[in-house]
């Protein structure tokens, strides 16, 4: 039985200084395996859509414009993504990657969350198509 059982910690903390990371002012590196915003590499994609099928949160959509010419557009919704990594596991061609250092995704505008990957021209086609169906 003793009073104030943690006094040693208190004194130690006073002497050694705080153990706080000064985050917004200093940024530490994240571990190598950390999962953040998904990226897509068109080169090997066959448009199989397994990633889309296995995604538990409806975050991925592969729009096939022309399967033979490999014209795919990859639509990714950050706000839906749960960063579970199943799509990376499912992809047989290693097209998908969850890099470790892109986690500062907070935003005041929801529109920022819709990300398109693919050839610029193809993305434009998909976007235009959206506009048409939207109107």
């Amino acid at each position, binding site marked *: 039985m003793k*009073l*104030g*059982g*943690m*006094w040693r*910690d*208190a004194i130690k*903390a*006073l002497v050694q200084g*705080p*153990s*706080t990371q*000064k985050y917004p002012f200093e940024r530490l590196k994240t571990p190598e395996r950390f999962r953040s915003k998904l990226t897509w590499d068109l080169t090997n994609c066959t448009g199989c859509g397994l990633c889309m099928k296995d995604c538990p949160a409806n975050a991925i959509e592969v729009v096939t414009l022309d399967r033979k010419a490999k014209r795919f557009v990859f639509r990714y919704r950050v706000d839906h993504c749960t960063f579970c990594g199943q799509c990376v596991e499912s992809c047989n061609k290693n097209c998908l990657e969850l890099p470790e250092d892109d986690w500062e995704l907070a935003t005041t505008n929801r529109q920022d969350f819709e990300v398109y990957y693919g050839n610029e021209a193809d993305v434009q086609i998909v976007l235009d198509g959206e506009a048409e169906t939207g109107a």
Partner: protein
Amino acid sequence: MNTLVAFLTMVIFPGGLFLLFVGMMYEWLDRKLVARFQNRIGPRWFQPIADNVKLLAKEEVLPEGVHPQLFYVLPVIALSGALTAALYVPMFGFEPATSFNGDLIATIYLLSLLTLSMGLAGANTLDRYSLVGATRTLTQLFSYEAPFLLALLGPALIAESWQIGEINDYARDHWFILTQPIGFVVALIGLMGKLELPPFDAPEAETEIVAGAMTEYSGRGLALFHLGKGVELVIGLSLVAAFYLGGLANPIDFVVKTVLLLGFLASVQALMTRLRIDQTVGLWWRYGALLVLTQYLVVIIVEGTIA
């Protein structure tokens, strides 16, 4: 001219703005120290100022079912009570702004005004957390008040005066902490109870009753209560320092002694677990009051034999 001086004492120094500022600084120091004990960086120096300015600029919601006049006036009474009390205390090591024989009693009761207002404010609302908070606040008031008063009367008895200024002068060459150590401890603990600092924060225990009597207050009212507490912290610290730590002769004296006391308070806050309200009451009545009374007896007897 006299009115101008009186006005200045009330509004600028040591009454109004200056005291508010010092109160906020002491609050910051307290929070910072606790944070450092907990191995954190803690708030920046202007944190209480920003908090209070923000609260003052915020909307004040009038909850349903309260007495509106009481709701608005209680925070003002609380703060003004605390500010008035400052006039009788040797603030910052200077002579008290005004004094009369018996101002010690007046000061102590002016200080209680804050707690009373908080109790009333809690009882004024329909919210159940506030009601429990109010009950606990008042229960605690009745338990710490007597030991705290007794502890402050010890030095007064020896100094043979009821005037804070005189006791302060007397204390300068008599360190009462050596002759009345129990009184010193009880006075400090009583001060913690008065300010509802942990571990005596059962009346506003966050995990049980949200914010106690303050739950329904927002904006200005909350800011005034906060400010009042800061002011009380300074007054309480300077009272204890003046009575027990060899008096307050000059500003340096004041800063050194009160900050030392504050450091002690902060460490107690950090190291202790919150007491239940029944444990608090038990502690003060069973040990606090009795020990001080015993010391009282000893002091009177010793005084009598010497005289």
